[in-house]
């Protein structure tokens, strides 16, 4: 059992890897009333091919990770979800590009709920019949996303940044892609990506670490799960093809998304987490509400508080993006373009601004620690092995020069892609 103390943050992290490979991270917070537990596999919608041991390559249709997440709740003797309900626990699950997580929080019955979480995730039950039924339900869910304008814009941007690649497909897949899913495929994926050595269990809140660890150990001891070697084929990044894509939809004002891809790299671990932190400050220094640039555009009515920038790093897919709702999307594009072209000047002699923003970012990080869910889910635990506390500690070491260095990487030879949704 490894104990790491973060004195400044008054937090403690206890970690342990069991003999079968299951990783456990515990953050006890005994002045809280509930306990939050998340079991995660680093398997998400970006996975397209894999093989087990030295077997042949298996294709994964778009939407499979999300499909499996839904399906894992259905068991021979009923619904795993309702069992949480009976225990008064609030359960949920989600799938994103790089992980699938199963979680619950409760103020009572924590132990039986935790055992249930481990058991239902580790006991697959897939049949032709249940798979067919799910294909209908998810079909409906996909349709619902098709009515969500913000989702359309986000996916539209990804399609222009990374045409026809894994990230440009909806996490839920399409009616056609999910039709290809079979029980055999789901079992193979479960064997590969849900074996204990792939799973991480995080527990945050009110609980006794020793006792909880003993419960998990005894639960795992009773299970015989064969381990296997998984080979994942890395996705290759496509070239961008067009600089603008327009789609029509009944929106009251046009919605626009702009994006810039970072040059391809293989950065991971602490370095990757650091880039994420530096990028947030860089974007804020360039386009934040406190800048003259923002204020000028805001006063002209070109942007409003809906304007957002973000930096995403999902393995090879790394990009910055801008989202806005405006009739003046051409002017906005020009202004963003001009401002980026001018980045050296915008960022020069800005050390004071940098220091202020770094301090503010630290303050925001501390505010985030109020929430057990944030502690478990807003770190880079799964992607890069750094938890939210590590991130906050790392942030304090970032320098103005880090920002200038990253600006060279991001803006020097930038190519701006656009997606517009309008009537």
């Amino acid at each position: 059992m490894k104990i790491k103390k973060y004195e400044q943050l008054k937090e403690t992290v206890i970690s342990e890897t069991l003999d079968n490979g299951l990783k456990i991270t515990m953050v006890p917070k005994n002045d809280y009333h509930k306990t939050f537990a998340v079991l995660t596999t680093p398997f998400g919608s970006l996975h397209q091919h894999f093989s087990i041991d030295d077997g042949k390559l298996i294709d994964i249709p778009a939407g499979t990770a999300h499909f499996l997440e839904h399906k894992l709740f259905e068991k021979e003797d009923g619904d795993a979800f309702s069992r949480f309900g009976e225990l008064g626990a609030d359960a949920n699950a989600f799938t994103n590009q790089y992980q699938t997580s199963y979680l619950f929080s409760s103020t009572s019955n924590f132990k039986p709920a935790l055992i249930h979480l481990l058991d239902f995730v580790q006991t697959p039950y897939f049949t032709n019949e249940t798979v067919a039924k799910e294909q209908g339900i998810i079909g409906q869910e996909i349709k619902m996303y098709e009515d969500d304008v913000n989702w359309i814009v986000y996916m539209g941007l990804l399609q222009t940044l990374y045409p026809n690649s894994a990230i440009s497909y909806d996490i839920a897949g399409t009616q056609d892609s999910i039709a290809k899913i079979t029980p055999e495929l789901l079992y193979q994926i479960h064997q590969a990506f849900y074996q204990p050595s792939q799973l991480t269990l995080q527990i945050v809140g009110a609980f006794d670490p020793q006792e909880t660890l003993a419960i998990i150990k005894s639960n795992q001891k009773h299970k015989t799960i064969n381990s296997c070697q998984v080979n994942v084929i890395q996705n290759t990044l496509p070239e961008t093809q067009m600089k603008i894509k327009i789609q029509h939809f009944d929106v009251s004002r046009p919605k626009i998304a702009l994006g810039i891809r970072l040059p391809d790299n293989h950065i991971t671990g602490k370095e990757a987490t650091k880039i994420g932190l530096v990028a947030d400050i860089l974007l804020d220094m360039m386009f934040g509400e406190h800048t003259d640039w923002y204020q000028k555009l805001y006063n002209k009515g070109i942007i409003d508080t809906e304007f957002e920038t973000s930096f995403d790093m999902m393995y090879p897919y790394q990009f910055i993006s801008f989202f806005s709702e405006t009739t003046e999307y051409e002017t906005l594009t020009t202004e963003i373009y001009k401002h980026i072209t001018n980045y050296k000047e915008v960022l020069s002699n800005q050390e004071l601004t940098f220091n202020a923003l770094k301090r503010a970012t630290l303050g925001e990080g501390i505010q985030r620690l109020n929430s057990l869910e944030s502690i478990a889910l807003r770190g880079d635990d799964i992607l890069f092995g750094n938890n939210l506390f590590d991130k906050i500690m790392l942030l304090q070491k970032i320098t103005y020069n880090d920002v200038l260095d990253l600006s060279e990487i991001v803006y020097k030879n930038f190519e701006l892609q656009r997606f517009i949704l309008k009537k």
Partner: protein
Amino acid sequence: MKKIMIKKGVNLVLMPTTQFKTLNIAVDFCAPIDVTDLSSRALLTYVTAVSSQKYPTQQAVAKKTIELYGAQFQTDVIRFGQTHHVRYNLQLPAPTYVANSENNNLMSMAFQFMEDMIFDPLILDEHFDTAVFNQERQSLINEITSINEDKKRYALSKLRAITYENRALQLPALGSVEYAKKITSSGLLKTYTNMINNDNINIVVFGDISGNEVEELVKRWPLTNRDSTVETPFYRQKKRTQFEHVVEKQSDINQAVLTLSYQLSLKPNDPRRFTAIVFNALYGGSPLSKLFMNVREKASLAYSIYSRWQHDTGMLSVIAGLSVDDVERADKMIQEELKKIQLGQFDQSTLSAIKTSIINDYLSQQDSPSSEMSLAFLRILTQRTISIQEWVNAVENVSIEDVADLAKEVTLQAKFTLIPETSK
């Protein structure tokens, strides 16, 4: 929780705790709801969020919140029954986690900032600054318009319109585009002056605080006495004599939305409110509910479905996102599930699970400053002083018969259905 009267009609509530890593300050202005100034009060929350004499632009405000360690300054409008609330919220990291020699007065800086934003707005010659005013009025209009883009919100807003008799309750809490367009910058000043001088004010401070220090800081604000009598916030209307049903077709949508409103009106202190909470969770308010389990999971008639009961207006609403082909069957099933509850056709184990889950949600609120503060405002408004244990016991004591009996009082009032144009 300690309540201190600062002036007549102005209360300060102190909630000291070290559980969290933040300091939270919220100021609530409460007035009887009035259809003519819904939008005007909403616009105030826009204008005063981005400007004041001391911080005249959004940029200046942003720079100040950055200086306050990334503080989050937010304004909101909230409607509770027949009261309308303008609320200012400030959250910043608790001074102990960021303190150094430069900022040992972070607490007083926070209160000073709230004073600057709330009590010293950007007013010149008897009206709000024109540029800011125009800008923010447009933002408000955009926001009201964008409700139409979220099809479920849109359908619910239409349902409100055909359910309530009071025009102020028919509209969204932000009012309407029509009202928003009529506001002038001098008219807005009247609304502001009226709010500052006449509204009941409640201030909640939550975090690692010492009572005396906070009280001293609040007393520096320019607060005056006001009429402190509060009408009941609970809104009541007679049952409709005629059932309303509206169907609307829209192009460019794939899914249908079905919404229903029912009356379930209880007196403010009726102990059956706990039964109503349990009933709602059993009917459609939780993932264990009849609507979710039967309509969505078993019959696959809807992708999403839930119900919500509002004690403040005495209404229960049901909303479902579904395929247009399933609307009729889902509608029928929604009514049937209600009948089954009225007949007591549900088992003890389901009821127990529902109650455990309600209690879990209630206790979980103690782990979020914003939930704790909302609850504190609600307690002040409804003048309820029930303890956590009493609340839990009251829910635990609800029986199958209690739920069935209360369900018989649930009466369908209106239905609004949104369907794709291309369909039959």
